[in-house]
Each structure stands twice: as C-alpha cells, then as structure tokens.
C-alpha cells in the first residue's frame, strides 16, 4: 500500500525527474524502509519518506514550469510569512496606499468629466448654444425667433431645445415619487445624440399634440427607483402633474439615458424624466429659448454666427441703428466651466495627498529595509547574489503594492459613490456640479492602477537600490537626502493644509456673511388660487389680514414686486438708469428685520395715497450720492419724482454676487403679491414643525375657500438653496484633505526620524557614555528634524500663497485667507512635526550606552 502510494506520487512528478530517477527512488525507498525496525518506527519512517516524496514532486513540478517562477513563488511565500510575524507593518503600508490612491481615484472620477473626458455623444465638440449678447434678459433668444429660424434654410443646424417642463408624481408600485421633467424639441437627437442605454429615440409621432405620453428615464432615477431593471422599458407608469391632471395619463417608458449624461440646464436640477415637447403649443412673446445647433464639418462658429445674425436681422430686426448679434458657445464649455475650477483644485490636492502617501510608503519600506539589514547581510554572506537579495525586496514591494492598489481601487469606488451622492443638484453661485456625472469607469481604474504602479516602483526601487549597494554592513541615508525628504514632505503637507484652510475659511465667511435681514422665526405662506396662480392684489391683502389676526403672529407682510427702473437721479455721481425699482408692501422692513440706517420707513398713508416717497439701499446711496446724505434727495421712477425718506441696509438675498443698488417705493393695492411672510412666536414654529401648519393656513383658507396654502419655515438652507450646495459639498472634502495631509506628514516625519534614530543609535550611546544629558540627545533629534521642517514650511507657504489665486476661483465670494490663516497652518505643522518627533526622540534619549557599545 505504501509503495503503491509512492508510485502514484512519482507518476505525478515531471518526466524529467521520473524517467531519470524514478526507479532509483523506488528501489531506495524499499531498501531503506526494510532497514528500519518493524513496527511503529518503520511506519514513521515510511510516512516521513512519503511526505518528503510528495514535497519533492511538488517542487519538481514548480521547477518544471520555470525555475524563475518557482523562485519567485518561494519569495512570495517568504514575504507572506514575514507579514504574519509583523502584521502592523503590512497593514500600515496597505492602508497608506489605500488612503492615498482611493482619494486620488475618487477625486479623479469627479475631475475627469470636467477636465479630460469628452462629451458622451458623438460630435459633441461641434454642438453649440446660441445666445444673443444684447438681449434684455439672460442673453436669450425669444422662442418665436427660434421657430422663425427653423423655417429657413438654417434649419439644417438643428435649433433644438432642452427645457424644463413640469413637476409631478410617478406612482411606482404604490410609491408616490416626486419628479422633475424636461422636454426636448423634435429632432433633438439628430443634433445632440444623447446616449441611450436602452430603448428608442423619440419619433415625430411622439411630439403630436395628443400623442400618448412617452418618456426617457434618467440613468440616476432609473437606478434609484427601478433598481436598474431593464424590463422597465415599455412599462406604463401612472403620472400626475399639473399638465396631465386634466388629461389624466400614464407615461410609457421608451428609453433609458446613459450614465454619462445628466442634464444640459445650468440653472435647474437634473431631470428624472425627459419627454418629447408637444407640437402646436402657443408661444408667448416673452418665452425665452437657448437653442442648440450642430455645425457641420467645413463650417466655423464665426460663419454660422454671421448667418444666424443675418436671418434674425431680417425676421426680428434690432432697434434702428443697431444690428442683431449672435454668439455661439461650445456645449462642452457650458457643461464644464462651472465645475472646472473646483475640479482642478481638488485634483491637485488629491495628487499632493497621494504624493504624501508615496513618501510615507518609501519611509516605511526604507525603515523595514534598515531593520532587516542583518538578514540581508546573512543572505549575502551565504552566497546569495545581490540581485537575489534585491528580488526578495522587490517581490515584497510588488505584493504589498498590489494589495495596496486593490485596496485603493475598492476605497476609491466607495469614496466616489459617497462623493457622487453629495453633489448638489442645484447650482451654487451660478455654477452647477450636476451637469457632468461622476463615473468610476475604466478611465479611473486605469489611472489609479498606473498611479499605484508608480507608487510601488518609487516605494520599492529606492530601498532596493540601497540594499543593492550594501556590502556586509548597512549604509546610511545621507543627511542631505534625509533633510530633503523631510522638507519636501513638510512642503507638500503645508500646501494641502493651507489650501484646505483657505477654502474652509472662505466657505465659512461666505456662509456667514451679514445678510441685512433676519430669517429666524419667519414663516413663508404661499396661497395658491383655484386657478393655480399665486394670489395678488385684493386677495393677497385679504390673506395678509387673516394671517395678521392669528394668535402668535407678531408681524406679517407681502412680497416686494418689480416696478421698472430708475429714470434719473439729480446730483447723482453714477449712472442710475439700470437700477431696479421695487414696490415695498406695508410692514416689510419690520417683518424682515431690515436695518434702517437713516430716516424712516414708509407709513401706512403713503401706501394708500401712492405718495412720492422712496427708500433706497445703502449701496445705492453710496454710489449715487457718495459725499452727501441720501435723505431728501430726489429719484425719478415710473414717471414720478420721489423724495428719499430712508436708507436701509441692502438685504442679501443671494450669497454670491455683488449687492445690487435698489430703490423702494410704497406698494399700492395693485402692487400687492403673495407670498405672505410672517414673523411668529417660537411656539408657532414648533407647532408647524410638529405638523400643525393649520394654525396659520386655516385663517387664510376659511376667509377664501378654494385656496391652498404652502407653508415653509424659513431656514438658511431654504432661503439660499441655490447658494449653499457647492460650498457644503466642498467642505467635507477639503477637511478630509487637510486632515489626511497632516496625518500622512506626521506618519512620514515619525518614520524618518525613527529611521534616523535607528541609524544613530551607536552615536547616541557614545554621547551619553561621554556625559551628554538625555535632554541634549532629545534636543539633537528634535532639532535635526525641525530644521528641514522649517525649510519645507517656508517653501510650502510660498507655494500656497502663489496657488492661492487659483484657489480663489473656487471659493465663493471675494475672500482670501490672508496671514492669520497661513500663520495658523504654520503653527499646526510645527506642532505636528514636534509631536511626531517626540517618540523617536524619547527612544534615543533612553539609549543604554552599555548595551549599544557591547553590541559592537
């Protein structure tokens, strides 16, 4: 039985061994086994011989594949055994790489769309948006002009539109899901070939006035609400909106948009549904349009601009003495310019953090090589070639690097999902981060693997090179190299921390600007009439009266309304003709807590009698009458000459942008408009938040049956929802950058100083032996570390100041961090460096000279 097993094992060995030595092996096994005493001793010997034969067979099979790979397999097993003995070291390397690479991969996934990736449809670089730079509002064309352009030979350019349409509710398996829908004009995909993951394009019949409703789902909505089920194509889903209520309609899903596309609208959140625009809908003269065109090859934007302007001049001429002008803006430019500054800054920050991680990795491997110098010396002494010893090191570096890259890819995937979930859907300060989706695709994975490969090479090659140059004694890191590494690490950490602090302080100042009004304990009430329009005039006044009479309401007012522009202001120092005039309802200043700087508010009689009084903002007063008091001055607005009776602080209704000069006039009854803003007691706020909004809505609805009222407690985020998204998105990312940079720099400094202490242990032992105090040794270590840290700090701060102007493009408002922030960053870096050097310094100070010198 035993010999049969031996034969079987031999049969599995490579023929190069089996043919040559098989018979000898079997003969010797039989002969030698017979020499052992019968019984347990023989059995033991036979088992040992069987195991030995099995291992020999396995080794021969490995060798038969390739001797080199067999050796490398041995190096791999050796490396794994080493990590089992020192798991903290391997874990630290993998975690360091995972952090650096994961963050870099996630940020690259964000930045790729804004900086490198082309538009996700063919020919995207030839698609342009048409605008009129001389237009009154938003540089937009009128919708009627676009229709006229489509009726000319210029229709070949497309002139397609992507517009918001409606909000509504989808009924998905009993769940009511609120959705925003957009619509596209006929032939949209001929001009802008939006990627469709499944389904079909809209057909001309889909645009007919009474055609069955069809829609594309956005990729994000499809994944979130339908779990990515491809069977949703063709499904009919109940859909209720203002538009469909009367018609009552399901909507049939006919397509799913690809993941690389979200929206083309800078000013509104991305859609959940996209529907075909209905043909034949009447257009108002004031309806605006931003059509998209595709320029054929061989034509240039300039020639197309001239053609379109020429046709517009013919169909809708400009005022006498002027000509129509048209501008084409590349679609890619529109999609990416808002997010590009943020993408650049975040990408640079992530790469710096990655460089810090690489630096820490080099220190860890360097330290490890120093600890193993005796092992390497022994191997060399036993006859291993230098390449053989270096190969052990490289195999370990590649394995650790591979594990680190894999961990980094996983961490990057998780981080990018987290970042993507926090991207604000509304624009902030005129910039939208929702236009370009984050994709963790093959581009990101390739970039991460390439970066990881570079990390591994850097992390493994230099220590391996140092091992290669050893004789039997370990070499030291030259002091200049040591200082250079420490200084460069400190510089990188300083740049990242200074950038993070600058952005953080800028965001803080942006979010805490003086607003010029109070919003706490204010409630917004929007009464909708039966016809779906917000109440105006007498009805608005009636709603206001009802609210004022409610218990718990301190003050209430209606909204201001636009009332033309200032015509003239005698004695003015600036052009006032573009200044807006607003009608101010009764109690507006008091209800909103606006600060009255000079003069007085309007009295009730002035509202009733349409008195010729005016209140101006401080910005208007400062620019129009910079050296005089505004009180008593005259402004001409709406054909009437008005006397300024008060100056108020300019209320800031948007966090970004300059404060605009404004003139307020008393609102008469026709100028009254809801919503009603009420300043209420805290008790009322608590009741509303507990779901008892009827305390405020019932007085309105009982006075005016058929009216529905929306109630919103005014919060900072509600008021400034179009301003806070991106700053709040940036805050945790830059905080993470700063914290990681500090942590990695601390690890790096700790590792380097520890390595230095290890190298100089004998020297410290001798110093202590000849009488140096422990404090002296401590000062030696910390002082040697702090010098290059100081140099790196100065360099880092200088670079941070230079880079500051690029960072300012991402910081909202016109804030700069300035000296206090940079001084704070410097202090934090120095403290971190001292803390990191303390432990190895303490170890050096505790060196026992007897032990050190005896080891010689």
């Amino acid at each position, binding site marked *: 039985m035993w010999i049969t097993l031996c034969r079987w094992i031999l049969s599995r060995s490579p023929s*190069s*061994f089996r043919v*040559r*030595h098989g018979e*000898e*092996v079997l*003969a*010797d*096994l039989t*002969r*030698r086994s017979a020499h052992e005493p019968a019984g347990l001793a023989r059995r033991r010997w036979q088992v*040992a*011989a069987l195991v*030995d*034969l*099995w*291992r*020999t*067979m396995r*080794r*021969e099979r490995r060798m038969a594949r390739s001797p080199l790979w067999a050796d490398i397999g041995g190096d791999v097993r050796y490396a794994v055994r080493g990590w089992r003995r020192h798991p903290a070291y391997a874990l630290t390397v993998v975690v360091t790489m995972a952090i650096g690479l994961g963050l870099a991969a996630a940020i690259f996934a964000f930045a790729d769309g804004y900086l490198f990736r082309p538009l996700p449809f063919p020919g995207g670089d030839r698609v342009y948006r048409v605008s009129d730079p001389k237009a009154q509002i938003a540089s937009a064309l009128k919708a009627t002009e676009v229709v006229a352009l489509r009726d000319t030979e210029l229709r070949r350019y497309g002139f397609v539109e992507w517009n918001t349409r409606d909000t509504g509710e989808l009924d998905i398996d009993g769940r009511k899901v609120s959705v925003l829908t957009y619509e596209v004009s006929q032939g949209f995909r001929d001009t802008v070939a939006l990627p469709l993951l499944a389904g079909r394009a809209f057909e001309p019949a889909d645009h007919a006035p009474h055609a069955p409703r069809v829609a594309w789902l956005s990729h994000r909505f499809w994944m979130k609400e339908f779990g990515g089920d491809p069977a949703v194509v063709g499904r009919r889903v109940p859909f209720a909106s203002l538009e469909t209520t009367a018609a009552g309609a399901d909507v049939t899903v006919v397509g799913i948009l690809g993941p690389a596309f979200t929206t083309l609208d800078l000013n509104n959140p991305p859609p959940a549904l996209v529907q075909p625009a209905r043909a034949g809908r009447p257009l108002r003269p004031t309806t605006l349009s931003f059509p998209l065109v595709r320029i054929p090859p061989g034509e240039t934007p300039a020639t197309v601009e001239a053609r379109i302007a020429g046709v517009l001049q013919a169909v809708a001429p400009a005022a006498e003495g002027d000509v129509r002008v048209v501008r084409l803006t590349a679609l890619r430019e529109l999609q990416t310019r808002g997010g590009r500054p943020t993408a650049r800054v975040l990408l640079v920050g992530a790469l710096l953090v990655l460089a810090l991680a690489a630096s820490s990795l080099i220190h860890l491997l360097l330290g490890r090589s120093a600890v193993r110098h005796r092992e390497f*010396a*022994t191997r*060399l*002494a*036993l*006859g*291993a*070639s230098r390449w053989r010893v270096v190969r052990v090191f490289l195999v370990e570096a590649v394995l650790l690097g591979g594990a680190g890259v894999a961990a980094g890819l996983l961490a990057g995937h998780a981080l990018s999902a987290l970042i993507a979930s926090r991207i604000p859907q509304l624009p902030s300060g005129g910039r939208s981060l929702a236009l370009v989706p984050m994709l963790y695709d093959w581009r990101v994975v390739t970039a991460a693997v390439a970066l990881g490969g570079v990390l591994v090479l850097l992390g493994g090659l230099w220590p391996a090179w140092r091992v290669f140059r050893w*004789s*039997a*004694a370990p070499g030291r890191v030259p002091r200049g190299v040591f200082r250079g590494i420490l200084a460069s690490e400190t510089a990188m950490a300083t740049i990242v921390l200074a950038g993070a602090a600058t952005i953080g302080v800028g965001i803080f100042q942006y979010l805490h600007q003086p607003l010029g009004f109070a919003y706490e304990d204010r409630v917004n009430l929007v009464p909708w009439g039966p016809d779906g329009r917000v109440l105006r005039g007498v009805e608005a006044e009636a709603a206001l009266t009802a609210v004022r009479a409610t218990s718990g309401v301190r003050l209430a007012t209606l909204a201001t309304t636009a009332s033309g522009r200032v015509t003239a202001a005698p004695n003015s120092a600036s052009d006032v003709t573009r200044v807006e005039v607003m009608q101010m309802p009764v109690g507006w200043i008091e209800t909103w807590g606006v600060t009255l700087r000079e003069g007085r508010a309007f009295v009730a009689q002035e509202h009733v009698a349409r008195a010729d009084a005016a209140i101006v903002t401080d910005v208007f007063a400062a620019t129009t009458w910079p050296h005089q008091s505004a009180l008593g001055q005259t402004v001409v607005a709406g054909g009437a000459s008005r006397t300024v009776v008060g100056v108020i602080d300019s209320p800031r209704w948007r966090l970004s942008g300059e404060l605009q000069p404004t003139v307020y006039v008393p609102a008469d009854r026709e100028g009254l408009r809801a919503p009603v803003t009420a300043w209420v007691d805290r008790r009322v706020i608590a009741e509303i938040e507990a779901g008892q909004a009827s305390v405020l809505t019932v007085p309105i609805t009982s006075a005016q049956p058929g009216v529905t009222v929306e109630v919103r407690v005014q919060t900072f985020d509600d008021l400034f929802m179009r301003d806070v998204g991106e700053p709040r998105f940036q805050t945790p990312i830059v905080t993470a950058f700063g914290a990681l940079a500090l942590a990695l720099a601390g690890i790096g400094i700790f590792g380097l100083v520890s390595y230095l202490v290890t190298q100089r242990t004998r020297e410290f032992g001798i110093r202590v032996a000849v009488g140096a105090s422990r404090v002296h040794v401590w000062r030696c270590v910390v002082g040697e570390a702090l010098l290059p840290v100081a140099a790196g700090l100065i360099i880092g701060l200088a670079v941070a100041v230079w880079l500051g102007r690029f960072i300012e493009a991402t910081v909202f408002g016109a804030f700069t961090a300035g000296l206090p922030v940079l001084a704070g960053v410097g202090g934090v870096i120095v403290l971190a460096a001292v803390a990191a050097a303390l432990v190895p310094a303490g170890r050096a100070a505790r060196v026992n000279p007897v032990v050190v010198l005896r*080891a010689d």
Partner: protein
Amino acid sequence: MASRRVTDTDPPLAGPALHVLLALGTEARHGYAIMQEIEERSRGAIRILPGTLYATLKKLLADGLVEECAPPRNADSDDSRRRYYRVSRAGKAAVKAQTERLSLLVTLGKVFR
C-alpha cells in the same frame, strides 16, 4: 568581517547539496550509498530521504557540480546496475567556497555569545 566579495561564479549550496557533495568526497557512489554515508558521518543526526536525495542529485547534475560515472571496479553486481556519481571539478570549488562562507557565518554568530 568578510574581505572577499561573493560572486555568482561561486553558487551557494543548499544544505542537502553540501551534505551530498561532502558524502561523495573523492569517491564515486550511488544514491543509496550517499544516503548511508551521510547518516553514518552525522551519527544519525542528519537523514536525507530518497525524494530529497534524488532531487538534489538532479540539481547538482544540472549545475555541473556532480557527474555520472562508471561503477568502480569493486562494485557489487547488484550495485553495478545502479548509477554512480562523483564530484566534478566545479563541485569541488563550490564546496570550498561554501565552507569559507560558513566560517564567516560563524564569525557573525559571535554576537549571540
């Protein structure tokens, strides 16, 4: 401390390989005799099993440190059918280099005394 730098022309010898070469010495032996010689010299402290022995012989043959030869004149008839091995010139040089390395190792090991 070693003053001579080890090069690739003096390949290091793994444990079993050195024992096999030492057991062969200046004579030609077959595999079983090598096993017996090693056991006797070490008084049973070192036992090389057949699997390891022949794998080692295969490698030594491939490295040119051992060569096959004709059975000696005094071989038994049974033994004369077996393969005989002897140390080549390169093998002698390798053994010499290895013993020098081991003496260096002994020097390094003094730190533990």
